[in-house]
């Protein structure tokens, strides 16, 4: 085997080792980030080592961001539900983590609120909002763009 071939084989072995290490690092990171996000969004157990107060503040922040974005996309929801909007949204959010877009989230929350507040005075109006005469979803088309910032 020539010296050049030896170098090529060594380089290839090294590249393969680097890829294996990267894949392992991705798995470790996925595990930790998954634990944290589960704790922050659906009330999963607090991952080891975090300060509980910091977890609570970050979880509240994520919930508020989600609620405000939904309220921004469908302003009728905070208008109709008033002081019940925030507590209802908290219950909904813990049972329904955000997995897709905010527009779908807003529609899903509206339907959930109808099912989970049987005696609420705003039910009729919310039902009308969800099922207007004419196009069934016409009123639920997003009126604004999603807010996203960092």
């Amino acid at each position: 085997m020539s010296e050049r071939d030896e170098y090529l084989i060594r380089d290839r072995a090294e590249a393969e080792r680097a890829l294996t290490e990267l894949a392992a690092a991705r798995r470790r990171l996925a595990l930790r980030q998954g634990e944290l996000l589960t704790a922050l969004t659906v009330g999963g157990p607090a991952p080891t080592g975090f300060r509980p107060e910091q977890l609570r503040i970050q979880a509240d922040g994520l919930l508020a961001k989600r609620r405000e974005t939904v309220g921004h996309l469908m302003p009728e929801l905070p208008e109709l539900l008033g002081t019940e909007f925030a507590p209802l949204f908290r219950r909904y959010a813990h049972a329904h983590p955000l997995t897709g877009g905010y527009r779908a989230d807003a529609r899903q929350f509206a339907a959930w609120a109808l099912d989970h507040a049987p005696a609420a005075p705003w039910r009729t109006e919310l039902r009308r909002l969800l099922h207007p005469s004419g196009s069934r979803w016409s009123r639920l088309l997003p009126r604004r763009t999603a807010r996203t910032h960092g």
Partner: protein
Amino acid sequence: MDLGTIPRLGVGVGWRTEIDTAVERLPGLDWVEVVAENVCAGHLPPSLRLLLERGVTVVPHGVSLGLGGADEPDPARLARLAEVAAAVGAPLVSEHLAFVRAGGLEAGHLLPVPRTRDALRVVAANVRIAQQELPVPLALENIAAHLAWPEDELTEAQFLAELVERTGVRLLVDVANLHTNQVNLGVAATAELDRLPLEALAYVHVAGGIERDGVWHDTHAHPVTAPVLDVLAALCARVDPPGVLLERDDRFPPPAELAGELDAIRRVHQAARQPEEAPAHV
């Protein structure tokens, strides 16, 4: 590491649908940033097209790539960001040092990456993938956090410095986020500025927020406060930023107030560039 030339952007504001006409009329506006996910490359809003026709630079700012995530960046999201960059003729695009999804869950916001050497390897690989797919240079932004990972080995600035070294990525320094982390996590903003390789600086974000019960909330819905402008001044004392941008996302003020905030930013920048005469030696 070849950083190439970093374009001069000047002073700008985050373009948002709600303030499009106010932005169009802002005096002396050099450039705007647009949230990449909120525009479609094939159907740019008329207001953005007007600004482009006037020669105003538009920089797409991504919020959902999650380059700090465990998975490789999603090709479709990357392609979309690249399309928006091409559609507006952007000199660069920006994203965050953050993860936004994990285990099938969406955070809906930017979360900090555990800043370990192990995670650094993953994030550097993600940044390189993004750089390969994007038609223009990428800048990464520091984020506002409410929590710290127990396994952190590096500060955010040190982590970003490693990424610059390994990938040549450029920096978007958010001075409001530095302030946020100083209040919430006790990380001194000026110490972080000292740890950042500011020669890689592409531009700076400035934004307002509010303190409640000892916690700083980076709302982008309140006026820019003096402590945030102080961090901007500290940055400008270290480097002349190629660009500075005001972010406002909610509770939009009247146009005159927005213009006033931009003027305040310009004053801080100019004061740093024209330091007072040194006192004469006796």
